[in-house]
């Protein structure tokens, strides 16, 4: 690693900073609503005024040496809470403070704020309360059984990325556009004219709010400079103050201004609400190139790199807001899924790889930070050199960057009706989710537990864990005399639960539109301003809702096992199989051995198993794709788990593939952990049998031992493997480079491996911060060791 003294200090401070809860935002929001309880203004305007109140009153932070300023909380890693969305109880806060993994320090002052101010005001009046009140019994039953999760229970819809426009516009330009729109509202024939006017006014206030914040920084930095004796340092701080006087009000003109401009915008998005996933600057290499080329002649590579490094540290300072609820099992990580994109193609379809691409990749390698996440888009038009560069970082074993197929993403987005240009301006955000950057609201609504539906089908709609009839009565297990009949019953259950999920999401979507609009985010995403419509109400040019299927490998192998053992070999009846599962294979060792070792499995390029994956994929797709939502979005599918396959595994009994009750499901579209025994080329062949183009993202995780990268031709062969997968329309592949021994050692001696970052599922995390189950699973994943 090679850090300048400045970066070394800032990076160390960021790594050392303790993750903690900041009650500042909660306090300000509560004060605002308290003071303005009698204010009779439309909701969007109220929300914009609330943001303005926060930015007018929140504390400012500056650490000498910083070149990019602004923190969401009072200091690095002080994470805000969002009581209007979901309210942490005192017990929640204590758990966050005391829990072993992914903990957040909660100071007595924060507890006091919550006890005396925040909880009394919000209890019973949060979005989460409204939401849970609005859900009917069948939704609650399925939710509690673990058939699906709900993203918008505790976090706001977000999941979008900054497009091109903000790199050449300032907030004042947006205000001018808003004024223009306001002047052309047609009160004669537009039945929505009042609502539009309110929304546009709200956007205007939100834009001003951020300018206020930046101007406060200008004053604050000038004061700081006055107190600084060192001449050089004073000039540096004054230069920062000057930048804050310009951006984000005006468009940036320098490289440094561009980064600070984005960072202010980022902070406003994640301060307004707590969108999942947070936010991200999109094609950073393309956006920064013009600024870089302008200054290249009079700035050294080190100066550019230093600015980028400061930018990276800002992301690392911002952990994801933690959830409420005693267990918080579903998805637990500090990562807030800001996924930097580089590579791929330009709007006109040509190769986008440029000098900035490589400089950014060098920064990723050198900084070696958990956040931001990073990915490389690879198009057939990009040179192999780009892949080699990415492999050189992957080899160092911190799980970044992940690799994406640009040509597949463009096809996926165009299938959904985007223009070629908007599709090419898109990419992937969060884990692996395809979206049109700057023009699309693509909301992830929740994970969907495919193997659980199979389990419920085997029990005629009954869930043994919660002791309730939550599904349809699709037939007793004795009634199925052939595989097809059984599968039809599964498909009926699948439709039943997808219907429940979609109904719930449709209500939640309306709650956000009604109660929690996001005028600031709406400024950024086209065409919210011209439509005079909020991001949460369908103002974006494109609107999609996703349901993320989880456990494709587990369900594929389970169907394969039922077909093989019950209907083909007739080793046992379906009823006997159900008994074995209920007994969690206790006294069924031989059966389990046959299921694990002698049953065709997904991921080996064998039709016997793979065609079941296609079957499930087609059912899932058919039952979801194209369904309309209230804001005018279409429902789409993708196949990714984040860490939800762990939670879903805990609520799912033993499965016919030999998996024991409570253990993790398979992850993404990846084979069941350890079930792929024919090498990576067989894996990618299997994975490409499902039609990635009709998804909005799939996740394939391949764990490689470091030795895989060591032979002289390894980069060439891995490049060929990636190219092969992408030629077959594979959406994404990530490599986890670490050997099992290292991981076992790390589990025994976590203190010696605090820097060990592993790829989890669409993102990277510190190995030590993972739960025991997830650690165990990562150890078990097949290491494709070369003898």
């Amino acid at each position, binding site marked *: 690693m090679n850090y300048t003294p400045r970066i070394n200090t800032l990076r160390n401070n960021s790594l050392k900073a303790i993750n903690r809860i900041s009650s500042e935002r909660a306090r300000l929001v509560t004060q605002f609503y308290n003071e303005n309880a009698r204010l009779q203004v439309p909701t969007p305007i109220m929300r914009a005024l609330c943001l303005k109140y926060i930015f007018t009153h929140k504390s400012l932070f500056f650490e000498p040496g910083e070149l990019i300023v602004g923190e969401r909380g009072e200091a690095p890693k002080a994470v805000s809470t969002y009581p209007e969305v979901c309210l942490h109880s005192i017990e929640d806060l204590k758990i966050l403070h005391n829990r072993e993994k992914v903990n957040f320090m909660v100071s007595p002052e924060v507890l006091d704020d919550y006890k005396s101010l925040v909880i009394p005001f919000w209890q019973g009046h949060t979005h989460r309360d409204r939401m849970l009140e609005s859900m009917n019994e069948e939704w609650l039953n399925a939710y509690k059984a673990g058939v699906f999760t709900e993203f918008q229970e505790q976090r706001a819809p977000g999941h979008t990325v900054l497009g091109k426009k903000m790199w050449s516009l300032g907030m004042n330009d947006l205000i001018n556009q808003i004024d223009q729109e306001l002047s052309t509202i047609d009160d004669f024939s537009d039945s929505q004219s009042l609502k539009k006017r309110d929304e546009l006014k709200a956007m205007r206030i939100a834009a001003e709010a951020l300018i206020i914040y930046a101007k406060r920084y200008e004053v604050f930095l000038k004061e700081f400079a006055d107190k600084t004796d060192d001449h050089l340092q004073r000039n540096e701080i004054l230069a920062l103050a000057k930048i804050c006087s310009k951006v984000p009000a005006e468009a940036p003109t320098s490289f440094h201004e561009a980064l600070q401009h984005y960072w202010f915008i980022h902070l406003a998005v994640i301060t307004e609400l707590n969108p999942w996933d947070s936010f991200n600057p999109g094609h950073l290499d393309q956006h920064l190139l013009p600024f870089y080329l302008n200054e290249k002649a009079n700035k050294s590579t080190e100066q550019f790199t230093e600015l980028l490094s400061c930018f990276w540290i800002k992301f690392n300072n911002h952990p994801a807001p933690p959830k409420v609820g005693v267990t918080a099992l579903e998805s637990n990580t500090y990562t807030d899924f800001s996924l930097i994109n580089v590579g791929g193609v330009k709007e006109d379809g040509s190769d986008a790889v440029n000098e900035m691409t490589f400089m950014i990749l060098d920064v990723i390698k050198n900084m070696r930070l958990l956040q931001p996440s990073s990915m490389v888009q690879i198009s057939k038009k990009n040179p192999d050199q780009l892949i080699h560069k990415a492999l050189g970082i992957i080899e160092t074993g911190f799980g970044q960057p992940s690799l994406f197929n640009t040509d597949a993403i463009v096809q996926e987005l165009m299938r959904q009706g985007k223009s070629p240009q908007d599709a090419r301006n898109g990419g992937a955000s969060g884990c692996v989710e395809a979206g049109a950057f700057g023009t699309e609201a693509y909301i992830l609504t929740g994970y969907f537990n495919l193997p659980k539906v199979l389990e419920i089908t085997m029990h005629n709609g009954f869930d043994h864990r919660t002791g309730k009839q939550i599904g349809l009565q699709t037939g007793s297990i004795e009634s199925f005399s052939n595989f097809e009949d059984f599968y039809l019953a599964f498909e009926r259950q699948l439709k039943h639960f997808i219907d429940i999920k979609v109904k719930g999401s449709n209500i939640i979507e309306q709650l956000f539109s009604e109660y929690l609009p996001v005028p600031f985010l709406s400024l950024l995403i086209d065409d919210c301003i011209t439509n005079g419509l909020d991001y949460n109400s369908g103002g974006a040019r494109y609107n999609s809702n996703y349901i993320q299927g989880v456990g494709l490998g587990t369900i594929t192998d389970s169907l394969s096992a039922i077909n093989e053992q019950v209907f083909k070999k007739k080793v046992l009846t379906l009823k006997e199989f159900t008994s074995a599962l209920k007994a969690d294979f206790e006294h069924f*060792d031989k059966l389990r051995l046959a299921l694990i070792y002698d049953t065709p499995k997904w991921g080996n390029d064998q039709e016997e198993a793979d065609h079941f994956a296609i079957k499930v994929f087609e059912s899932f797709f058919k039952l979801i794709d194209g369904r309309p939502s209230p804001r005018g979005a279409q429902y789409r599918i993708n196949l990714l788990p984040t860490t939800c396959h762990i939670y879903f595994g805990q609520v799912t009994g033993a499965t016919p593939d030999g998996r024991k009750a409570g253990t993790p499901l398979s992850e993404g579209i990846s084979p069941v952990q350890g079930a792929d025994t024919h*090498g990576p080329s067989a894996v990618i*062949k299997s994975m490409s049998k499902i039609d990635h183009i009709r998804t909005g993202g799939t996740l394939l995780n391949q764990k490689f031992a470091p030795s895989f990268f060591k*032979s002289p031709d390894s980069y*060439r062969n891995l490049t*060929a*493997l990636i190219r092969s997968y992408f030629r077959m329309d594979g959406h994404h592949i990530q490599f986890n480079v670490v050997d099992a021994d290292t991981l076992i050692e790390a589990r025994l001696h976590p203190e010696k491996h605090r820097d060990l970052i592993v790829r989890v599922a669409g993102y990277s995390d510190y190995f030590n911060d993972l739960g025991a189950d997830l650690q165990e699973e990562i150890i078990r994943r097949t290491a494709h060791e070369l003898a």
Partner: protein
Amino acid sequence: MTNIVSGLIFDIRRYSVNDGPGIRTTVFLKGCPLKCAWCHNPESQDGSIEIIKRTRQLDGQTFLQTESCGYLTTTDELLEEIKKDSICFEESNGGVTISGGEPLFQPNFVSDFLIKLRKQGFHSALDTCGDSPNHIFSRITDLADLVLYDIKCISESLHITYTNRSNRVILENLYKLSSSGKPFIIRIPVIPNFNDNLTELILIDEFIRSLPNKPLKLELLPFHSIGLHKYNELEKTIPELHPPHDKLANIQLAESILLHY
């Protein structure tokens, strides 16, 4: 009318990246004329289907299962399996490697297979120990695009002691192969107590220097004992001269003498 030719194989390995250029599928044929003392694939030696006892782990428990090792397949069936990785071959300039055992132990099967590979446009490599009658050797190596040729040692008596066979034909065949202009790679297993000493390494070096054409490259394969458990599984006795499992070959010496090619 197609002629159905069957062969006995014991494994097919995909994404094989150490047996020739690019990403390859390696087919392992069963049966070998040599009985190398260090052999880590004892299941490859016998030219018939054998019974192997495999242990399988489940939740810390060990289960013993009997399986047959080796199965008959036709060249057409094999080709279907090979085709599965066509795209990887194309992207990596890879192909198919025929290994063993000793492929030349099943000459008709191998020649038929090589002809079919050529028709399909797949690059082929033949991994051989070279212990085969001259005319068979020439006929088959002619059909391959690349030959991976094993040399164990030059001294005949040592070769007999450690492999049960003379190396005269082997060295003759290598000389012939080199004269023919066919691209070839020499692979040398570096085995402790056998050929990792100055005398043998120098003899090998001199022999390679005497060849009319140089190999594309020379690869050293250091001894490892990963195959030891297989002797038990096959209920075969471990050869008396098998190096101890913790013994390391003097690979630095071999490199210093041989790796100038």
